[in-house]
């Protein structure tokens, strides 16, 4: 065994040196290389995940906003339709009311005019009757005078 170890140059001092060497390398690489690189990888992964999440929420929000806008537009449209139809109704009733009023007024005006005409005619008749009577009286007086 001794000669075998000697043949391969196994030396406890060298073995220890190699162990220490690897230990130093292990610690140095862990601190200098693995931890910082892993940290960077983790940070980037977190950032990407955050970015993806943000994009998702943003697109969700956009979709929601779109939906909201559509809803608002639809509401406004129905409302406008309602307003127009009610205005149209209102206009219709107003129109008929105005027409009725105008008709009524026209009828009244016509009736008034007729009544006044009738009154004027009656008055004229009365006046003419009075005149006729007076003329008749005058004529009678004349006749009477001539016959005298």
């Amino acid at each position: 065994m001794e000669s075998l170890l000697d043949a391969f140059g196994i030396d406890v001092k060298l073995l220890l040196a190699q162990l220490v060497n690897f230990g130093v390398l292990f610690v140095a690489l862990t601190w200098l290389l693995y931890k910082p690189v892993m940290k960077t990888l983790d940070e980037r992964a977190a950032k990407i995940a955050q970015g993806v999440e943000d994009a998702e929420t943003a697109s969700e929000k956009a979709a929601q906003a779109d939906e909201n806008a559509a809803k608002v537009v639809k509401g406004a449209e129905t409302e406008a339709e309602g307003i127009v139809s009610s205005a149209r109704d209102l206009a219709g009733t107003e129109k008929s009311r105005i027409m009725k009023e105008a008709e009524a007024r026209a009828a009244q005006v016509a009736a008034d005019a007729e009544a006044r005409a009738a009154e004027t005619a009656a008055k004229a008749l009365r006046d003419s009757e009075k005149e006729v009577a007076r003329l008749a009286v005058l004529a009678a007086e004349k006749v009477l005078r001539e016959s005298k």
Partner: protein
Amino acid sequence: MTGALTHLGSFFNMLFSTNVALAAAEASENAGHAAEGAEAAPGIHVVLKAEEVFNLAGFPITNSLIMTVITTVLLIAFAYTVRSKLAMIPGKLQAGVELLFQGVLDYMAETLESKELARKFFPLIMTIFLFVLVANQLAFLPGVGSILVDHAGAMVPLLRAPAADLNMTLALAIIAFLVIEITGVVVLGFFKYAGKYVNFSSPVNFVVGIIELLSNIGRLISFSFRLFGNVFAGEVMIAVALFFVAYLLPVPLMAFEVFVAFIQAVVFAMLTLFFIKLSIMEPHGDEAH
């Protein structure tokens, strides 16, 4: 050519105040003095163990240890560079690193069936992979194995593939082994985990448990020798090819070795992961029968 190399040698000599030469120069020099003895004969330089380059207060600094330290320093420098440029919007380097990490982490989470556990074991698996990969690939740089220095009268290579030293692969194997066993104990609890290996419910289960225990300990050997064997064999193969035909022939072999170096890094990391998964699995006990 040899003259230039000799100049380079004297430059290194100035730097390190030790005798430095290059393998080619050394070989041709040795060829001249072949009569000096078998030791100095030109040939393939194959040594099973990493050689000591210099001694630091009783501590033997081997050529593989030097390469290991270089690998570590390079990796830490790389980590520092990446971290200093870290940003939310990644550059090319960061994107590559992130791609690798994310892929490995996903695969681990799939294997361990837990994101949390994958996060916990990721540093270990990744460090094993990066360390073995970079250590293996650096060994293909020119100069590794070919720059020689004088140590105690003999010329030894200044640099050697880290995984071509059993100390390094055994250290990795010990770490993997300890992590695997401790994870099993922590996740399952000591008695449940021990019950996987020492099981008196039936003679068959007892024998199966003992075999599993032995295979667990055997992992130390399989882990360390797999990596060592692959890298060392690759080095020897290239050295032999270089000895026969110095130009062009080694190219496909080296390309293949680059691939092997990568595969071995993947295998070491993946096996560690799989054994961790095995150790945290509930023992398939009585309900199965």
